[in-house]
């Protein structure tokens, strides 16, 4: 299995293939579309990420010392971004996550072009993950 940093690097490379923003978004959208929907009983307030215009749920689960996440959103772009985050952190140990630093967001230029509003949502999501593993 790749490390957190390797997965981030992988994502950066995937995005570098797209020359324009439309394509990058198309890619994110597709990811969002392909993610399976979260069953309704997980869509509770406790799993909701604060600070987003759209609603995003993030459901953590511990198995064999590792953390797995399920996620969903009513907006497809948010869902695609949540997908990327989950892909990076899924199946990691608490230690791996707490020691990690996210760099892919900046490198693919998401934050710069994401709205502060959305950047805040993203930050909240990452924040919530780090707090889960504390």
């Amino acid at each position: 299995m790749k490390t957190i940093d390797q997965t981030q690097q992988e994502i950066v490379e995937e995005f570098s293939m797209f020359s324009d923003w439309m394509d990058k978004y198309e890619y994110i959208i597709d990811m969002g579309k392909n993610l399976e929907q979260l069953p309704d009983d997980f869509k509770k307030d406790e799993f909701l990420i604060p600070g987003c215009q759209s609603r995003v749920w993030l459901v953590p689960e511990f198995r064999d010392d590792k953390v797995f996440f399920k996620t969903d959103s009513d907006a497809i772009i948010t869902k695609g971004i949540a997908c990327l985050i989950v892909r990076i952190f899924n199946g990691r140990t608490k230690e791996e996550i707490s020691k990690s630093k996210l760099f892919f967001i900046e490198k693919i230029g998401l934050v710069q072009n994401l709205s502060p509003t959305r950047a805040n949502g993203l930050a909240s999501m990452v924040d919530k993950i780090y707090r889960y593993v504390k």
Partner: protein
Amino acid sequence: MIDNLNKIRNDFPILKTKVYDKPLVFLDSAASSQKPDCVINAVADFYKRHNANIHRGVYFLSQKATALYEETRVKVQQFINAKYSHEIIFTRGTTEGINLVASSFGDLLSDGDEVIISEMEHHANIVPWQLLQKRKKIVIKVIPITSDFQLDIAAYKKLINQRTKLVSVTHISNTLGTINPIQLIIDIAHANNIPVLIDAAQSIHHKAIDVQKLDVDFLVFSGHKMYAETGIGILYGKEDLLNKMPPYQGGGDMIKDVTFEQTTFAELPQKFEAGTTNYSGAISLKVAIEYIEKIGLDKIACYEGKLQDYAIAKLRKMPDIQLYTTSKFNKTSVISFNIKGIHHEDIGTMLDKMGIAVRTGGHCTYPLMKKLGVTGTVRASFVLYNTFAEIDFFVKSLQRVVNMLKN
């Protein structure tokens, strides 16, 4: 019709800018309008030539700045045809105007008194009354809307009773674009001796308002939606009502005399203008009104109406669209909609990448969203500097975005 659209567009420097290397298509003027050069330059010129704190100095600059500030008051008076210039109070905006009335007129209310608002109000006309409820046990009654997105006037009449002390409704809904029949609303209230506050935030630059003809008791609006700077707004109030109300904020300029034992307050309008006001903002408002008058409110309304009809006709043809609008006669150029199965935020985000600025979300009308059964809408709004070509591009881009986003 507007004679020279190119000239008008040239007046607004921001319309020439690009976002992500694409020409800006600004369809969010209902949130805040762009500013013409004359407004931008007037403020710069003021600071370069006439700036000084107003009302307090005997020297030239202070007198000049005071004169400019007071000329704006008179300009606003004329614009809405108020009887006296001291009925014009400068505020930060619509929100502060309503808060002022809720707090200060609210002081005159008693437990059990009732205030009527409507289901399509902006938070600015809901929350101040709820805050007042923490101080007084007043009751807030709500006029429902019909399936046609209009105020239910029959229901309104039934809400009125002996305890009703104020009716406070919006002239034009910032989400639906619905133009409410405010003359009727006022007449019904007055027949019961109830004063009326009209939130004109969305109407002041779209329709001529004559406060004496309407006989409205309070009128509030914001400069930033009518081509002036942000941070300035107007509360109009009838002299006798304003005279009865206690001051809202305390400080310089709003006093006659101050002692630790007994402070007396200044006459209108100073009584409600504590501290250093946003006088450069006020001066920008004068220029903005002159700009509107030069083009003519009638022509503006007519042109904006055409834009609206054009946009609605095109949008109606889109598959899966839910338009929160029906009657075009009762409507100004604010259009809210959703596309089935697609989140409004996704649409806004993608349109943005094409240079198009629309608003998405609840538009500060969450109770209305709940009524419509949605978490938000996409809202496009058009004013005098928008074009038919922009609408074409907007609808085409929307189609493209929908194709990308739909499952």
